[in-house]
């Protein structure tokens, strides 16, 4: 059952060396504050799972916290991840690449207590199938061969949401992405929210996670870049990050600032 605590305390309780941690959320829902708190915690040997890791994932890789990245999309602004992949800086990065639909299905399987997901598209006929963790499964009724993918069961999911009620029910808000699926697939979940309210008001498309599916909730201030109603194609966050990420020295200075 969800407990509400300070972000640093929640990170201390939930983030451990060697853990598999899922970070989900796009645009205004990127868990920026939680990523910074994790940077301050300085974990080692993290397997980072993120469909589109975004600036938060880029920061954790650039800080050397991540040894393995599971993803489907690397936005152009993410220079730290590319530097790790191509030049091994600050450390080599192992990758496991999937499609967005594959990541979705893998989370859904994990959330559903199943060991694998079945998908039709995205692997067959591509060069991805040969370089990632995928297999085939045959339909026992039609004989069709489909792609099987291993379920994702991260140790921890970290997502940002608009708000929670005092009982710990969380209203995601904004572009849903795969935040809900990651939380339900993970063994534990840390959700940052911008406010805790007496009662959740209905909102179109706002997914609500029941309190029993959330481990910790931490309140964080809404950053200036957060506009839940913003066009999901607005890449302002990424562009601002690109300038820092594009240069090792600028990034190192930025990281020292975050950890100061």
């Amino acid at each position, binding site marked *: 059952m969800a407990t509400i605590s300070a972000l640093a305390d929640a990170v201390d309780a939930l983030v451990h060396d060697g853990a598999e941690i899922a970070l989900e959320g796009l645009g205004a829902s990127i868990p920026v504050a939680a990523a910074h708190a994790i940077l301050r915690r300085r974990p080692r040997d993290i397997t980072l799972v993120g469909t589109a890791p975004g600036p938060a994932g880029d920061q954790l890789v650039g800080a050397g916290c991540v040894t393995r990245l599971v993803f489907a999309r690397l936005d152009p602004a993410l220079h730290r991840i590319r530097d790790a992949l191509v030049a091994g800086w600050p450390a080599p990065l192992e990758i496991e690449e999937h499609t967005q639909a594959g990541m*979705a299905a893998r989370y859904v399987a994990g959330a559903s207590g199943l060991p694998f997901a079945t998908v039709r*598209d995205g692997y067959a006929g591509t060069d991805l199938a040969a370089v990632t963790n995928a297999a085939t499964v045959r339909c026992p009724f039609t004989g069709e061969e489909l792609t099987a993918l291993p379920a994702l069961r991260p140790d921890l999911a970290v997502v940002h949401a608009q708000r929670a009620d005092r009982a710990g029910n969380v209203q995601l808000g904004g572009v849903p992405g795969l935040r809900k699926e990651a939380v339900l697939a993970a063994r534990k979940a840390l959700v940052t929210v911008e406010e805790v309210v007496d009662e959740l008001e209905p909102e179109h498309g706002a997914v609500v996670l029941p309190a029993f599916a959330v481990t910790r909730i931490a309140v964080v201030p809404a950053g200036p870049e957060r506009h839940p109603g913003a066009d999901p194609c607005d890449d302002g966050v990424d562009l601002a990050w690109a300038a820092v990420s594009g240069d090792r020295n600028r990034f190192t200075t930025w990281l020292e600032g975050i950890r100061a």
Partner: protein
Amino acid sequence: MSDQMLVTAARLLGDGEVCVAGCGPARRAARLARATHAPGLTVLGDDGTVDGVPAATAGAAEFAAYWLQGGRVDVGLLAADQVDAFGNVNTTVLGEYDEPTARLSGAGAAAEIATGAGRVVVLLPHRLSAFVERVDFVTAPGALTGPLDRAQVGLRGAGPVAVVTDLGVLRPDPATAELVLTEVHPGVSVDRVRAETGWPLEVADEVGVTAPPTAAEVAALRAG
């Protein structure tokens, strides 16, 4: 992206259809179509958003399973980094996968759109570096290596029916599945297209010239 490229892509979308378009030029082209000749076009984001219908926004999981894999999408717009003579799309790496010379964005939803959508329109600037005989990595399947391959692998959908660039439009030859130059944009020569294409490009017997953007299209692009 040039206006000409966006309007040319937009015109390939039909009124009443359901299309999926990621962020960037694909989404701009789709919105342009809806603002002009296709007011009944449904524009889905690959993140599960329904353009203009906040109530119907679902997550990326529902988009992938129910809308795309479920066969409810008529047409997908794909932005490519590299395309080859059979319309295969690469957005993964340049060079070898394990030691790439450039690490691109990865599949995102492109691979499932390429086989889940009824047909696909590919968008990219026409440059020699991007138009290669064989892509370095098949991220999103076109015709693979010939006209029978998609069916043999069990892929659904027609795959790319048009590659729209800033120079013109290429479409697959039904017999060979190889891309053929069918239209050039106003002022573009066939030779220029050939010079920017990394394989001996087939050219249609009669190469059309795309209509320039109309005043309404330009206005919609500026507003959108």
